[in-house]
């Protein structure tokens, strides 16, 4: 399955323009068309469904409020991603000293469809993802889940491209190490006796 990328369609462009002019019905259609991916991205970054809900709600409220200022309707998706990710990171930053924030609820209550990937892979990757710092999780989610090119991911996070690249590189390395360190790892383990 390919990464869930989206391209702004002509219909979406019209909806963004109408919503920017104050048409709430148009905004409702935009919300219904984007919320599943944003909710999933927020859950991946925050590892807490309630906080993800807060982050997504806050993001849409900000998006609705500031939509008249969006100059290029074709950039709506990237703009919305940026608002959502920043909302996630803001929640973590503001609540860091209280940490109600990072309950790190395992996402095992989510029903798993028949996607062809092994459960071992999924669980290992999920645990490895949880071990990353939130800022590193965010760049992984932006790039590999939301399908943003790295320059767009860097823009969304408000960090230089070089920083985004190094964060992604370090994230993948850390995840690989974490996965390989698990006993019984099959997905990425070394063949016996092979030297790296």
């Amino acid at each position, binding site marked *: *399955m390919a990464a869930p990328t989206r391209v702004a369609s002509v219909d979406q462009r019209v909806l963004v323009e109408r919503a920017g002019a104050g048409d709430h019905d148009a905004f409702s259609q935009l919300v219904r068309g984007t919320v599943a991916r944003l909710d999933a991205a927020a859950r991946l970054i925050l590892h807490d469904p309630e906080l993800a809900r807060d982050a997504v709600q806050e993001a849409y409220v900000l998006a609705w409020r500031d939509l008249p200022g969006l100059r290029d309707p074709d950039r709506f998706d990237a703009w919305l991603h940026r608002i959502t990710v920043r909302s996630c990171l*803001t929640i973590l930053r503001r609540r860091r000293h209280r940490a109600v924030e990072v309950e790190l609820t395992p996402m095992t209550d989510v029903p798993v469809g028949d996607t062809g990937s092994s459960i071992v892979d999924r669980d290992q990757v999920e645990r490895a993802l949880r071990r990353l710092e939130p800022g590193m999780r965010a760049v992984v989610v932006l790039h590999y889940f939301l399908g943003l090119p790295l320059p767009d991911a860097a823009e969304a996070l*408000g960090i230089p491209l070089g920083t985004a690249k190094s964060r992604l590189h370090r994230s993948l390395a850390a995840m690989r190490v974490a996965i390989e360190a698990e006993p019984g790892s099959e997905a*990425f383990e070394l063949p016996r006796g092979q030297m790296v």
Partner: protein
Amino acid sequence: MSAFDRSRRLQQELPDLLIDIAVPRVPDYVDDILAQTAATRQRPRWTFLERWLPMFVVARRRVLVPSLPWRTLGAIAMLIVLLAAALLIAGSRPKVPAPFGLARNGALLYSVGGDLFVRDSIDGPARLVVGGPTDDFTGGFTRDGTRLTFLRRTAGTEGSQDERIDLMVANGDGTNVVDVSGALTAPDWWDLAPDDRSIIGIAGDPDQGQHLYRYDLQQPSEPVLIDLGPSMTVATPNFRGPDGREIIFRGRTIADGTWHSGLFALHADGTGFRALTPTTGDADSDYLFPQPSPDGRLVTYTMWDRAVSKNRIRMLDLTTGADRLVTADVLLNDGFASFSPDSKRITFVRYAGNQEQIMVMAADGGGPAIQIGPAYRQLAGHDVGGSFSPDGTQVIVNDSSLETRIVDATTGGEGRVLDWSRGSFAGWQRLAP
């Protein structure tokens, strides 16, 4: 399979695996979002500067900000500090409260729109103490009640990557404002030394882990890193009463590539480092919010109970090492406690559903817990917190950016909304009893 091949395979499979993990689906709160947005007004188009000006003009505005003559400003600041010191020596010394424990209630400090205000009493008139174009916020009085400490945003916007914040100190009337830290990245929790001559706090990119610094409040100088090595990050540092000989903090340490948490202590000069608890807690959810009692005997902290997915308040006796739960009821979700000035009670947050309720109870867990103010709905970016007045008779409830209430600490109840502070209450002055 080489490391390169394994890395490439992980990259290839990651998109599908992330979809497997998250399972994108339309959440059940879409109608809530639409109700919220329908009730929110859009910003008028004309208020977006970038819609009217070419982007290069908007961008250039930042570039054209003239650089400040730091040496001159530093020299002036130094002169101001010396002058203040001379005046302090020449003047009479007022009676001040002990650094820890009960004190008399003094003035109340709060921030509005980037300015700091003081009221001598709850119903007294507001007095601007730090105003002007600077963006000043948060803060408090020194332990002796004679000076103010506060934060000033000097670059970037709130929450942005380029945001920089300076720690400032001023006289109680807002005069003699001195920058004691220089530009900091994400400064967080800070606490004053018992003699008010220095302050400790954490700063640094939260993604990389924050570290402990000491700032001199007597004169502008470089922050001093209390170096605990690269394998330890610090959160919530507090001086331990009654003499402030130790700093207690939550630390995160890395072992075998995995971060863990625990509670630690050390002296302000960086010596005497020791662990107070096991250091194998979860990096994100254990040993949270350590708060020492003013008498220095206890420290309370919050643990995450994975078996029932609830917060638990614990109490560590620093004199005996005994560690216990404050409440044994597994149905309660209580966390983030702090002590009354007499060390006999705690105020904490009780979570129920999506609501937060400030409570007060005896520090030994005996007797009933009483509700302080109403239950607040949990909202993104809004933290509800309670803190005792210097004399311990009142609790200030701050629901950040929404409202501030003052509630009787003994009887509880709804209390009284302070309409002049919408969640921006910063600190209460301590006066000699």
